Structure formats: structure tokens, C-alpha cells
């Protein structure tokens, strides 16, 4: 594990007190944007202004607890990384349906079932890791980023607001977003670290100046108290077997979302990251499941890991897990202040849009980097290309897909779920016929390097192996054959692969390779060809993670092992 450039405070480090508190509050400001989903649900359930404020306050409490459970570092629960919770669009559709059928108690009851499902699946996640190879995780992260960007634009432009309103929205979006970008790129220290909070504040002030703030719709007629425990009058649960299927799909969507966000949190803490750590993923999933059950029990929607928050960590270089405490404490305190719920309920849409659009950029590019680190053949290109297109279709052709059967709505309603489902299924299909062990016989005569490069590159593409590891293997084979000299009849190369190992065996007729323990000096290398051969053996031993040379029948076999 090595520290990526630009990382100011890593997962196990705690920033100085001022940075610690303000960075936590900045996350709270970003996560608060996700409260828009419970607000929509509450309004659709016809809650009174007072009930709505209670609902928002309880949702804040749930976010705090969920952030602790998702970020905890323990044996069974938590990812061990700063992985704040947020409300996502996944639960909105099924929760609205449940609220229309049986009121909010039914939405809460079914949400609890989704949470139990998630927690139950967590321990088995390692067994199905072949479903989610790193290039698919990269795709999901990119789709999450793109879909958050789309959401950001929708908010930024005010959805279906009138033309006059849209131009004001556009101005606020531009002011807010420009502030965030300028502070993030051209400043250092506090200004860069708190670019999002400052950008949102500037946007909020601009909204007030342009007359876009309206507190009247959220403040009860009798006014609001300074401090108040949120009323638990909404605490009721109902269940309906007919709604199990859509909520089960939502639970799976949450898992897929998590399998993008937690690897992203891992990656921004480790420059050497190559694949998801499934122990951390499993803990995060169990934490997410428990958090969703708690959220449903106290009367709120289901929670998920919140991608924009991890994007913010990447943008500011502050990934300290300890921020989870500040987030949890802040939300707990804010839930006791009705005015805070009112303030959050009125965060202007273009300010929300700017925050989402800004953080989406970091998610999207990280996903692309994860994809391009792998060699991709036609199969993988189809898996990634088709799935990316499916994700876009979910956003662009939303009305068309709305005609799908109700059961499929949780899948087709959402770009992330449709894209990921497509990727997982296509990946399974495209695995058919891909062998994990391949052999190539070499023609006698000169070493045909192009054929060797082509063979290993094509095979690496079929396996979606890491580009850098395949390059090292190509060097290993070419360097080995260079030392062996002219290729004799029967010389062959065998390559075997799984996600963790790439093994290449070169079998030839000839003397065993000399693998020196010390590196030859430049003088020795210049002096004779023997010095060059010593350098060859030394380079091979250093380039491969393990090298072995042994008799193989009447031939010699050089084994080159690469950790993948």
C-alpha cells in the first residue's frame, strides 16, 4: 500500500482539530443534499409541515448512525474506510409505491426487509466475487459518477421550472460550480479542502439575493422551536408480500452501489490498488444492511453508501475515517434543531446541482482509470460498452422504460442498476469459452518477438489482466528466449491466469538459465557477453515476483510468476 499523491489525510490519520471539524461539516453539507429523497417521499405521503420536519430530522439521525456503521473498522461490521451514508434514488420508487398502497408504515416495513437481506448477503459476498471483476467495478463507479452528474444537471437547471426561473437557476449553478472548481484547482490549504462548502455557501447567498429562498412552505404555521426531539408519531410498520420483490431488487441495487463506492474509497487511499478488498466490502455491506434496518425502524427511508461523499474525499485529499464521528455527531445535533431541518429542506436546487456535478467528476474519472488499467479484448469491450450504453438508456429513455412491468422498475428506473445488471450478466455470458490455461508452440529459428507479444497481449485482453503485469510477462519471455538463443523445435510458452496470479512457463531445449543473486556491475556487463547474460538473469529475477528454472523431461522449464 503506498500513499497516492495529493492525499492530505489518509484513512487512519486524524487531521488537526479545525480541519477535522470543518471537513466533517463539509461532508454534512454535501450529504444533506441527499435528504431530498425523504423530502419527496414525505411530501408524496402528504405529511404536514410539522410531520415533514420530524421526518427530515429522523432521516438525519439515521444518516449519522449509518455513516458510523458503514465506516467502522471492526471484524464483522463496517468497511474500515470513510464511507458516509446518504439517501439515493434507489429506494424512492418502491417506497413511493409502498406509501401509496399502505402509507409510510408499509414503506418502513419493506425497507427493513431490504436491510435484512443486505446484511444476510454480506458474509457470502466473497464467493460471488467472480461476478464483479475490477473492470466491472470501474464501470459501475463511472456509471455512478455519470448518473450523479445527470442528477446534478437536472437540479441545476431546476427540472421543469419556468424559463425565468431556469435562467436564475443557471446563474446560481454557474456561480456555485465555478467557485468550487477555482478553489479546488488554483488554491491550497483550507480554501482547497473546503471548496465544496464554500461553493455551496456562495450559491446559497446568491439564491437569497435572487429571491429563490422560500421558507414559508416548510415552517409550520405555529412556528418552530429552537430545540426539539423529533416526534416518533410515524413509528409504525406494515408488511406486504407483494412488495418483497421490488424491495429485494432495491437491496441488490444497494449492494451494487456499495461494490462501486467502497473500492473507490480503498483506491483513493492506495496508489498501488489493483482490486477490491472483499473483507472490507463484506463489512460495509453488513453495516449498510443494519443501517437500513435501523433507518426503517426509526421511521425513515433505506440508506446507501453515498458516492459524492467519497468523490469529495478524493477532491480534497481528506479520507480520514475519523470524520465519520463528526458526521454522526453533527447529524445527531442537527436532528434536534428543527430550524436545521427547515434550512436543509430549502437548500436551493441549483446549489444541490452544483455539489453533485462537482463530485461526480471525480467518481467518473476514477471509474475510467480502473477500466483502462486492464487489457480489454472484444468480449470485455462488449461487456463494458453495452452496459455503459444500457446505463445511459435508463437516463435518456426513461419514459419508454417506464412501461416495463412493475417488478422490473427498480432495475430499469435507474442507470446504475440497469448498467450494473447488464455488466454482470454479459460478463457471465462472455466467460464462456475463455480458457485459463493457454499454450503456444514456437517455430524453430529466430525468436519471433511480435508473435510472443501478440499471444500474451491477446490472452491478457481475454482475461482482462492488468496492462502493466502483461507487459512485464512479455519482457520476461522475450528476455528468457534471448538468453536461450535460437529457438529449437518443441519450444513452447504456457500461460495460466486467475485474478491473483499470472504464471508463464517457457520450455526449451538447452542449458538451464543462470539466475545470479547479485547484480553484475556495469564493468562486468561491458567486459563480455557473459556479463550481459548475468544481467539478463538478474533482470528476470527482479522483474518477476518469482522465478524458477528446472528440468522438464528432456527440456528445461523457466517458470515466471507474477502477482496480479
Amino acid at each position, binding site marked *: 500500500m503506498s500513499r497516492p499523491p495529493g492525499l492530505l489525510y489518509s484513512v487512519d490519520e486524524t487531521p488537526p482539530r479545525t480541519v477535522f471539524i470543518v471537513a466533517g461539516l463539509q461532508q454534512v453539507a454535501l450529504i444533506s443534499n441527499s435528504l431530498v429523497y425523504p423530502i419527496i417521499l414525505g411530501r408524496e405521503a402528504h405529511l404536514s409541515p410539522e410531520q415533514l420536519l420530524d421526518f427530515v430530522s429522523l432521516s438525519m439521525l439515521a444518516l449519522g448512525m449509518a455513516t458510523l456503521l458503514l465506516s467502522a473498522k471492526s471484524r464483522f461490521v463496517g468497511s474500515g474506510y470513510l464511507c458516509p451514508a446518504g439517501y439515493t434514488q434507489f429506494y424512492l420508487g418502491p417506497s413511493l409505491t409502498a406509501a401509496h398502497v399502505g402509507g409510510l408504515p408499509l414503506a418502513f416495513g419493506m425497507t427493513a426487509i431490504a436491510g435484512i437481506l443486505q446484511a444476510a448477503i454480506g458474509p457470502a459476498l466473497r464467493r460471488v466475487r467472480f461476478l464483479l471483476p475490477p473492470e466491472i467495478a470501474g464501470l459501475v463507479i463511472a456509471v455512478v459518477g455519470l448518473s450523479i452528474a445527470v442528477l446534478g444537471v437536472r437540479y441545476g437547471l431546476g427540472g421543469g421550472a419556468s424559463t425565468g426561473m431556469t435562467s436564475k437557476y443557471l446563474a446560481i449553478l454557474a456561480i456555485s460550480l465555478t467557485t468550487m472548481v477555482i478553489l479546488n484547482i488554483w488554491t491550497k490549504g483550507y480554501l482547497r479542502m473546503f471548496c465544496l462548502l464554500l461553493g455551496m455557501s456562495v450559491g446559497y447567498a446568491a439564491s437569497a439575493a435572487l429571491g429563490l429562498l422560500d421558507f414559508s412552505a416548510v415552517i409550520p404555521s405555529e412556528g418552530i422551536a429552537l430545540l426539539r426531539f423529533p416526534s416518533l408519531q410515524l413509528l409504525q410498520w406494515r408488511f406486504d408480500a407483494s412488495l418483497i420483490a421490488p424491495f429485494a431488487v432495491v437491496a441488490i441495487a444497494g449492494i451494487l452501489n456499495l461494490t462501486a463506492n467502497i473500492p473507490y474509497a480503498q483506491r483513493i487511499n492506495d496508489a498501488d490498488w489493483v482490486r477490491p478488498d472483499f473483507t472490507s466490502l463484506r463489512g460495509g455491506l453488513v453495516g449498510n444492511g443494519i443501517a437500513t434496518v435501523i433507518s426503517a425502524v426509526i421511521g425513515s427511508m433505506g440508506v446507501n453508501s453515498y458516492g459524492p461523499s467519497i468523490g469529495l474525499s478524493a477532491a480534497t485529499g481528506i479520507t480520514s475515517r475519523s470524520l465519520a464521528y463528526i458526521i454522526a455527531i453533527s447529524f445527531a445535533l442537527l436532528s434536534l434543531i428543527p430550524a436545521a431541518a427547515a434550512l436543509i429542506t430549502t437548500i436551493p436546487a441549483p446549489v444541490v446541482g452544483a455539489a453533485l456535478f462537482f463530485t461526480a467528476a471525480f467518481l467518473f474519472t476514477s471509474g475510467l482509470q480502473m477500466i483502462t488499467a486492464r487489457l480489454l479484448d472484444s468480449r470485455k469491450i462488449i461487456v463494458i460498452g453495452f452496459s455503459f450504453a444500457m446505463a445511459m438508456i435508463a437516463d435518456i429513455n426513461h419514459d419508454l422504460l417506464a412501461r416495463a412491468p412493475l417488478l422490473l422498475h427498480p432495475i430499469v428506473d435507474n442507470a446504475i442498476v440497469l448498467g450494473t445488471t447488464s455488466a454482470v450478466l454479459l460478463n457471465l455470458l462472455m466467460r464462456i469459452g475463455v480458457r485459463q490455461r493457454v499454450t503456444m508452440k514456437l517455430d524453430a529459428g529466430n525468436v519471433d*518477438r511480435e508473435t510472443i507479444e501478440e499471444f500474451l497481449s491477446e490472452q491478457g485482453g481475454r482475461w482482462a489482466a492488468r496492462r502493466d503485469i502483461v*507487459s512485464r510477462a512479455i519482457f520476461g519471455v*522475450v*528476455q528468457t528466449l534471448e538468453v536461450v538463443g535460437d529457438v529449437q523445435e518443441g519450444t513452447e510458452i504456457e500461460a495460466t491466469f486467475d485474478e491473483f496470479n499470472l504464471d508463464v512457463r517457457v520450455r526449451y531445449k538447452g542449458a538451464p538459465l543462470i539466475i545470479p543473486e547479485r547484480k553484475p556491475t556495469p564493468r562486468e556487463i561491458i567486459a563480455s557477453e557473459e556479463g*550481459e547474460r548475468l544481467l539478463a538473469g538478474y*533482470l528476470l529475477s*527482479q*522483474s518477476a515476483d518469482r522465478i524458477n528454472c528446472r528440468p522438464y523431461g528432456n527440456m528445461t522449464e523457466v517458470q515466471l510468476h507474477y502477482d496480479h
Partner: protein
Amino acid sequence: MNKTALSMEDSHAGPACILSIGGRIDSGNAADLQDRLNKLILSGEKAILLDFKEVLYLTSAAFRVLLVATDEAERNASRIVLCGLVGQVRELFEMGGLLEAFTVHGSREDALARL
């Protein structure tokens, strides 16, 4: 032409002769590189900058050619400087402990400024 085949192109910038190298350098083509370097040295070039930015990888045969040419340059009051060592190429120099055996600069601009 195969995209991994060795390519060499020289140009001049001030007092320096820049040899941009691309592709793979191994025992099959190391002699070509040696010939090119010998010609540059014997033609009286006093500063030869080898830009490795487009090189994919190099084997022990290539390292030997570079070491021999560097020695030869010194004997002819010339010098060979390397730049553009990135990715696997840089790793190979590091693995062989050969970074110290050459004068290495990060980029072409950096190298030219110091020549």
C-alpha cells in the same frame, strides 16, 4: 511495420543531438542502435540526448549497448544523456541498478536545459 519494432529518429536542438527511440530494444536490433550511436559519436557530436519516451521495453542486450556507447562517447570527449524513462523502462533501469551508470533527466526539456 510492427508497432513494437525499433524506431530511431535524430534531430538537433542547440548543441545537442537528440535521438528519439521508440518500440522494443533487444538482441534482435541492439546492433542497429549501436551502429547509430557509433556514427553519431564519430561524426563529432558532443552531446547526445537519447529520448526513451516511446520505448516499450529493453533487454540486457540493449543495456550493454548503452553502457558500451557511453564509454565510447567519453573516450571521444562526447557524452550521452538519457531522458523520458517512464513506466516499465524506468523500472528495468532501476531493477538492474543501472540508473546510476548513466546521466538521466526527467524530460527532454529538462535535459536540454542542463546540456
